């Protein structure tokens, strides 16, 4: 069933990514980690559907936020990040998916690992944790190309500053801030060992990013002793998939 959402706010997260806030009538709320499908239809009837994760916390007000990364040769993301204006209407379907979700009754340690815009559904989990006043211990390992590519940086810093219950680490793959202790590079076994829950804590792990990122990180988690049924993954790709 397709619904119509009205754009109520737009905010740039980085030079290539924009957060779109939508107000949707009769929206049945969502669970952190779910996505929506967005359908754009041209005047000639041609339509394109893409999936985007919800970044905001569940709420009863019919409001949701998506953060969309612009793909250079994308069919939908350039429109959403450059042309869309406040007051425009978008067709959407959802919320979708009941597997890659975190629910506030989960009290076990949570390990979130994001690659690039894969942070979006994990941010919904972090925000959901706060809005539900959950005390579940969270750790986030966030891999980005360079410091300016990180989404939600100020909000994540504010959350981390509140105490040790949400611990946040970054991995930089192309350029790191000055004096950053770790050389630039992809997430590896040493970083997993130093920055994530030991498997003995039996965390539930959520890994979201491009397919190659998810493959490599989930293999590292399994080699550290995490069980396959505790590692949940969400892949996205440039070809018609989650963006």
């Amino acid at each position, binding site marked *: *069933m397709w619904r119509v959402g009205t754009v109520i706010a737009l905010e740039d997260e980085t030079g290539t990514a924009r957060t779109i806030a939508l107000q949707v009538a009769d929206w*049945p709320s969502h*669970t952190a980690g*779910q*996505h*929506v*499908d967005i359908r754009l239809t041209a005047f000639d009837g041609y339509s394109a*559907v893409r*999936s985007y994760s919800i970044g905001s916390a569940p709420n009863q007000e019919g409001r949701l936020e998506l953060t969309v990364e612009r793909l250079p040769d994308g069919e939908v993301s350039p429109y959403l990040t450059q042309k869309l204006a406040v007051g425009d209407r978008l067709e959407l*379907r*959802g*919320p*979708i*998916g*009941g*597997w*890659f979700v975190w629910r506030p009754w989960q009290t076990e340690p949570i390990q979130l690992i994001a690659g690039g815009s894969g942070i979006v559904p994990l941010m919904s989990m972090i925000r959901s944790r706060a809005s539900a006043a959950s005390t579940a211990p969270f750790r986030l390992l966030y891999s980005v190309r360079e410091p300016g590519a990180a989404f939600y940086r100020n909000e994540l810093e504010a959350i981390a500053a509140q105490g040790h219950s949400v611990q946040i680490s970054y991995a930089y793959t192309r350029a790191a801030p000055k004096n950053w202790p770790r050389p630039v590079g992809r997430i590896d076994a040493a970083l997993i060992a130093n920055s994530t829950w030991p498997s003995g804590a039996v965390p539930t792990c959520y890994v979201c990013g*491009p*397919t*190659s990122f998810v*493959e490599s990180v989930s293999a590292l988690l399994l080699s550290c002793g995490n069980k396959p049924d505790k590692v*949940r*993954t*969400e*892949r*996205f*790709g440039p*070809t*018609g*998939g*989650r963006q």
Partner: protein
Amino acid sequence: MSSHAYDYLDGNAAAGDLSKIFAIDITTAEGQCANCGATKRFAEAHLYMHGPGLVARCSACEQILLRFVSVRERVFLDARGMTYLCFNASQSREAS
């Protein structure tokens, strides 16, 4: 390693299209692969969606579990790659 080796998503990404025909969210349903016998959540399948339809493959043996194609108002579903798909009927519908 070529990027071609990583041209799949996961079963989650099919949930919107499959909500046209399944009343209960399929991503949490457990399916058994008819080829290798692995039993996994549908969300864990490897999903190929750059063709005219969707193809879900077993994440253990890569055999086809399910094919789904929409042609105008007709929808074709081929699920013979699974011996069964087990849904939790008490679960409230999350894909609408």
